[in-house]
């Protein structure tokens, strides 16, 4: 099944490559990316799969559709256990030219909130998602079908506002589309982002985010978050990266409410033109966790993930990470992580640029 999915993606890529060069006269760009990830536990119950997997193969096509609109199509095959799931990641029609100071997109896309949620996983600066992201956005990100509009405010300060609304029948990764019901309030979100320069030729982007959705069963999910990304470069080399997100999530429902907070901080410095070393610190806590009789249960989940990256170009990456983490409840250790991860990423063809 996996092989069929991946073969389909590759075959699709080859057919397109044969019929059109990576960048043809119409501006069509084709990109194929493979993300290979393996992990190995360093003790029993270390939280590892002890396997090397093709986590994802993705083919992306993007181009101006005409003089006003741009189109993006992204098809991905990813592995879940022994099964491969083939799906459309993104299919959008958008424009930056139709309305002054504005851009919009219509179709299916990763919601334009936060930092990790907007970047394809093979382009993340580390291998796997921190707990806070897994809890609120799943192991990759939240994608849905809808419309998103962004406006650059005409003020001296750089301030870009994004609002979006999507179907909201699902929230996060889903295999149960047939069983989903129309939400009481569809998924909606707002993001305000600014940018400022920092000493030593650095720059930082800071975003404020809100996501909301009320499911058919009345559960109202709200997420508030701040993301910040600082970069310092010397001659195109990213000498220092600081990336962080902090999120507070609430689920208001008929059953006991859920209230949780978490963050990650990832500083990374260069050890040369192609080698980078970073350490990610993760923290997650359920603020109102209770046991069956209703007593509060103290809890915390933290992890430290040193990550060594070899990235000779934007088209290939080798990465090694060590995951150490513990989850405590009522003072007792209930889960731990103690494993190493290896990642190999390669991108064939064009590579779309990311914001900052």
């Amino acid at each position, binding site marked *: 099944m996996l092989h069929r999915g991946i073969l389909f993606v590759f075959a699709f890529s080859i057919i397109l490559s044969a019929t059109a060069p990576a960048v043809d006269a119409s501006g069509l760009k084709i990109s194929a990316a493979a993300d290979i990830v393996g992990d190995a536990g360093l003790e*029993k*119950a270390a*939280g590892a799969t002890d396997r090397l997997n093709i986590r994802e193969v993705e083919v992306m096509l993007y181009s101006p559709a005409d003089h006003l609109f741009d189109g993006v199509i992204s098809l991905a095959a990813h592995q*879940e*256990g*022994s099964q491969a799931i083939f799906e459309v990641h993104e299919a959008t029609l958008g424009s930056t030219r139709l309305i002054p100071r504005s851009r919009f997109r219509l179709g299916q896309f990763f919601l334009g909130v936060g930092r990790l949620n907007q970047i394809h996983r093979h382009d993340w600066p580390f291998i796997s998602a921190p*707990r806070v992201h*897994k*809890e609120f956005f*799943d*192991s990759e990100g939240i994608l849905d079908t809808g419309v998103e509009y962004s406006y650059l405010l005409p003020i001296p300060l750089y301030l870009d506002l994004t609002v979006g609304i999507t179907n909201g029948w*699902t*929230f*996060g*990764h*889903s*295999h*149960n589309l047939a*069983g*989903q019901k129309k939400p009481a309030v569809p998924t909606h979100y707002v993001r305000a982002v600014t940018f400022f320069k920092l000493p*030593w030729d650095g720059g930082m982007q800071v975003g404020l985010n809100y996501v909301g959705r009320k499911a058919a069963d009345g559960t109202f999910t709200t997420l508030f978050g701040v993301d910040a990304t600082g970069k*310092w470069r010397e001659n195109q080399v990213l*000498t*220092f990266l*600081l990336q*962080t997100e902090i999120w507070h999530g609430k689920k208001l429902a008929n*059953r*006991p409410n859920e209230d949780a907070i978490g*963050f990650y*901080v990832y*500083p990374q*410095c260069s050890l040369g033109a192609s080698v980078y070393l970073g350490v990610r*610190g993760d*923290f997650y*806590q*359920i*603020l109102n*966790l*209770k*046991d*069956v*009789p209703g*007593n*509060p*249960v*103290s*809890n*915390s*989940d*933290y992890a430290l993930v040193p990550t060594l990256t070899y990235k000779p170009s934007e088209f290939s990456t080798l990465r090694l990470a060590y995951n150490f983490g513990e*989850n*405590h*409840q*009522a*003072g007792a250790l*209930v*889960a731990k992580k103690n494993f190493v991860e290896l990642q190999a990423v390669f991108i064939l063809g064009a590579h779309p640029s990311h914001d900052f």
Partner: protein
Amino acid sequence: MNKHAALGLITALFLFGCGKEKKAVTPEGQRPAPAAPAGPKLGGFPYSEVGAGNKLEHKGTSVAGNGRVIFHQPVAVVEATYDLAFSLRNDKSSLVVVVRANRDLQKGVSVSFTRDKEVVQVKLDNVAVDKKVAEVLAKQLKASEPLAVQLKVKKHGDHLDVDLLDRDGKDIGELGHSKTAGADNFYGLVLSDAVVTKAKTK
């Protein structure tokens, strides 16, 4: 001070500053521990019966008979392993493990083990497992003997990925995807002529 050192120092201050702030809000281990509930325990884990009509024997080292129990401690993790040891006393005896349920052991995801003569039939959300997994199970598990398995449960969006492992944690097979991700963080057992000697999470 060069640029790297300064940026590293600022980041370290941020990291440690955040950590200290979080600890100050809810210091680990300093919150008064909940009063130990009077009631049965299995392997040190407190639990209680759910609903009426239960006919269960609680011996501290086992729970046996017919009925429903829920463990008091929540399992608030993305991925959890449930380590089980049990016996199915008679033909058609069963044990149902309900994970990510609410306090009433409702709206969870169930994995059932039912004795069918010498074979253990396993179902996820009342759906039989894949034939290949069933064949492996038939070879590895004798329904008339004491059984020891582990369930590895991973929350993935709106569903759970459930794997079955042997007593040592080696893969037996994937049970598949559940229909929902459950309603809360609690787990429990539904016994029908069964004896459970271990049901802990790790």
